[in-house]
């Protein structure tokens, strides 16, 4: 049945899809989108606040992109200090900025999480920190080598250089973040990248390491987002907005249906929790192309959490939130209120687990949710009804309902928060 419909997509016979009759012609929707795009590009120009602009009552720690040579000299001076300390018989210790939750702060003016300047000592001669300080020293040495050779490695590579010491990639990854925090540089400046996870498709042309990439001609899968954002440049686009999709499945549907040709847009997904390079890429697109960002996530606390990571940054990497966050992301769907609005049948909704409800309630306490009254309302509704739904719940009306009806209608109604 779905197959049949695909063939007759252009026919007006698609009336069986609910709400389809409410859709205005695409051109009308395009008009609204153009207005929206224009207004957001003008507004985003004015918003370039930095930490320094605010006179906060405490000091915050932020990192910057550093050149390889300065990273190298930072490491060298650190190691020299340690060597002196060891030789004078005092052992050694690292002064590592704390990345614990207590040291995080949401700054509403910036709309992102920043790291306060609390730090903890990591002495070698202490049973609880000996392991970490040994790992830190080792990571510093490895980064130093990368600096000398001027090459990039993945986090996995780094882990495999000394599996015996690191034991678990989680440990080397955590220390890596500590190190970049300690040296005051972004993780990308350490020449360590995460494996590529995000993909992009749509009306975007950019250069990756000198090669021009046209994202409309990348087939169905789209272009993998390159891990080294510093090698990405020359972004051009005639899109009206960026569509951020939580999940691979929804992304595939949209890419296959060439949604970006119907409404000029760029579709991005990080397949779940976003990695650093996807976040960097999104930010770069947003700042360079000045496009509004609309998010399509699941209607559950987890979806909202992913949205918040794009928007305000993760706690784990809050030291680099200035580079990683994309402000002003609009929550397009699927929102808890959509479940009734689009008459999603009961069997497609899922009851929330205890854990879900708890996460939802915790989110209600978070500042980045509170600052948006619309979000609070939606989240309260979710916690109250104790129901969640995935983007795929829309497939109950047909596999293409998402691209044929739901999204166009949402765009037409400017139904984003």
């Amino acid at each position: 049945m779905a197959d049949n419909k695909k063939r007759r997509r252009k026919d007006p016979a698609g009336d069986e899809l609910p709400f389809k009759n409410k859709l205005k012609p695409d051109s009308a929707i395009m008009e609204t989108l153009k207005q929206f795009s224009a207004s957001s590009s003008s507004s985003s120009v004015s918003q370039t606040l930095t930490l320094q602009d605010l006179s906060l009552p405490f000091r915050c720690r932020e990192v910057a992109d550093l050149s390889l040579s300065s990273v190298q000299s930072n490491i060298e001076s650190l190691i020299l200090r340690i060597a002196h300390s060891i030789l004078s018989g005092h052992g050694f210790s690292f002064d590592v900025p704390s990345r614990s939750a207590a040291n995080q702060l949401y700054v509403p003016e910036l709309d992102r999480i920043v790291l306060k300047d609390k730090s903890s000592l990591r002495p070698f001669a202490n049973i609880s920190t000996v392991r970490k300080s040994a790992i830190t020293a080792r990571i510093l040495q490895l980064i130093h080598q990368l600096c000398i050779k001027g090459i990039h490695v993945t986090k996995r590579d780094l882990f495999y250089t000394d599996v015996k010491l690191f034991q678990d990639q989680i440990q080397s990854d955590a220390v890596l973040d500590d190190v970049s925090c300690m040296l005051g540089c972004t993780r990308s400046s350490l020449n360590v990248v995460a494996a590529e996870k995000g993909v992009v498709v749509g009306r975007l042309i950019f250069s990756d390491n000198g090669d021009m990439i046209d994202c409309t001609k990348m087939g169905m899968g789209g272009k993998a987002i390159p891990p080294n954002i510093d090698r990405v440049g020359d972004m051009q686009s005639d899109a009206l907005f960026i569509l951020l999709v939580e999940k691979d499945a929804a992304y595939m549907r949209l890419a296959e249906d060439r949604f970006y040709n119907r409404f000029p847009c760029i579709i991005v997904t990080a397949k779940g929790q976003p990695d650093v390079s996807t976040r960097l890429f999104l930010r770069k697109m947003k700042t360079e192309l000045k496009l509004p960002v609309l998010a399509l996530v699941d209607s559950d606390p987890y979806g909202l959490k992913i949205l918040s990571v794009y928007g305000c940054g993760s706690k784990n990497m809050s030291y680099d939130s200035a580079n990683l966050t994309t402000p002003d992301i609009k929550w397009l769907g699927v929102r808890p209120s959509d479940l009734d609005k689009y008459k999603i049948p009961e069997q497609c909704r899922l009851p929330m687990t205890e854990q879900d409800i708890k996460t939802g309630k915790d989110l209600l306490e978070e500042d980045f949710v509170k600052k948006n009254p619309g979000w609070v309302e939606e989240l309260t509704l979710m916690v109250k009804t104790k129901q969640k739904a995935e983007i795929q719940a829309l497939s109950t009306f047909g596999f293409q309902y998402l691209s044929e009806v739901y999204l166009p209608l949402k765009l037409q109604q400017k139904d984003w928060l």
Partner: protein
Amino acid sequence: MDGDGSSESPIETKKAKSKTPRKPKETILKQKSPAEFFAENKNIAGFDNPGKSLYTTVRELVENSLDSAESISELPVVEITIEEIGKSKFNSMIGLVDRERVDAALYDDYETEKAREKRLAKEARAQEMQAKNAALGKKVKDTPASKAIKGRGEASFYRVTCKDNGKGMPHDDIPNMFGRVLSGTKYGLKQTRGKFGLGAKMALIWSKMSTGLPIEITSSMKNQNYVSFCRLDIDIHKNIPHVHLHEKRENKEHWRGAEIQVVIEGNWTTYRSKILHYMRQMAVITPYAQFLFKFVSDAPDKNVSIRFARRTDVMPPIPMETKHHPSSVDLLLIKRLIAETSKQNLLQFLQHEFVNISKSYAERLIGEMGPDFGSKMTVKSLTSQQLVRIHQLLRQAKFDDPSGHCLSPAGEYNLRLGIIKELHPDMVATYSGSAQVFEGHPFIVEAGVSVGGKNVKQGLNIFRFANRIPLLFEQGADVVTRTAHKRINWSSYKINQMQDKIGVFVSIVSTKIPFKGTGKEYIGDDITEIASAVKYAIQQCCVQLKSKIVKKMHAREQQERKRNLSRYIPDASGAVYNVLKEMTQLHASKKIRYGDDDAELLSKVSENLITKETLCEKLSKHVEQVYSLALCVKVS
């Protein structure tokens, strides 16, 4: 008793009527001698079966020997020998001619033709299998050699000899001491191992029942120039000794002591471990005694010879005979005391025949008894009603608890020695409680708890002693076992009840041990006084152990910490050194400016004055310093 007899008689007659062909002789009142009673109910005294009987015989003889030596403050030396006697030897001993079986089918173990075929077929099969396996090169266990089938009535006999260096026995008393059940020297109120005057006599009764051979006693006392020798058995019906030979012999070596030899039916195979356990635990609780245990048989590989050497010369004081505590007497006992007393009037009687009654207290008691009592009234003239009144008052009045002076506990020192010898534990703690009272009898609980050791099972290993005799049977119901398993929270003392090798030794001494059941085998769990005293004693040991264990754990933890720290030294110093090394190379090629200190450091690295080893060494020194500092802080 009379009432019982009359009420039962109608039933008896009914029975007789129902069995008409029987003669009315059944209703005749019969009397049983104590010896007969115990012969019929020998399980009461621990003679349930041949094996147990062998064990109990050994036990009674050893305990008598110890009591005897201790009574004259002599360090005991006890030699016990069990000699296995084969059937033919036994027959020759009793003058019976060995007879070959003529009518084979008459016997119980006769193998019928069918059974024989079956057995042979089975054996052939087994052999075939073995051959097959051998051919295949498989390793096979030797098939158990077909057990020699031991038929019914194929009893084993043992000669048990026990020799000691004790007090010996007066020549003329010997027949009565062995040939009369319920006669004894230990009836006073005193902590003794034996109590009822049963042990040696029961051995004699058992020998009479199973072998018919008499008991032989050799004994000599101090300053006697002769040795008494007596061979006797017992007339069970009359409960009197039947003397075969009673003579004085020359005592050339001025030997003092006693040697008792008895031939009984037994079972060494099944009770071997029990007997050896008994001897070993006896050696634990009486480390001042020397034991020599021997088992002799025709098969030399089965022979056992163990010497339990004396480990100390310190002997606990002899238990003193004490007077009754007023709250523990009954009517009969009061009557007996009155009959035996040398005191004339009531006041003196109360004051001198009981503990914890002073003169003034006796007067107050007499005043309380009523107007028809007076201090001066002659005690022997009291009527039965008056005795009841006295009994009631003694029951209700308040008296000080009896002191434990009359008791002779093993002592913490002896207990500790015993535990160390027996278990070789990693650590041991002992505790000796103060005297407490149960039903007017003082008792003292001593405990020892050990952790670790050689050949010790994981979990709780319980060792029980009552009046310094080991208790081996009925362990499950015993107050010590129950307390140790159920009421001690071992984990709160950092002891793991399942994993650690725990030894729990509890010794209880009292003028009257409240044994449960028939034999002297266990103390019931229902006496709260004893249960709580046992619990407290064990807990006290555990408290001592805990501090030791915690210290040990702490030391181990420190060691662990140090090891953990040291483990990362090569990693950390290697990382630092490698960066330095790289830097020296860069330093040489490019001209990067460093501070003076840094430049000096780098030049030392390039000249190999500072190597990875230097850093390692410095770092481990630092760790050592921090570690020893941490230890000092913990200690202070």
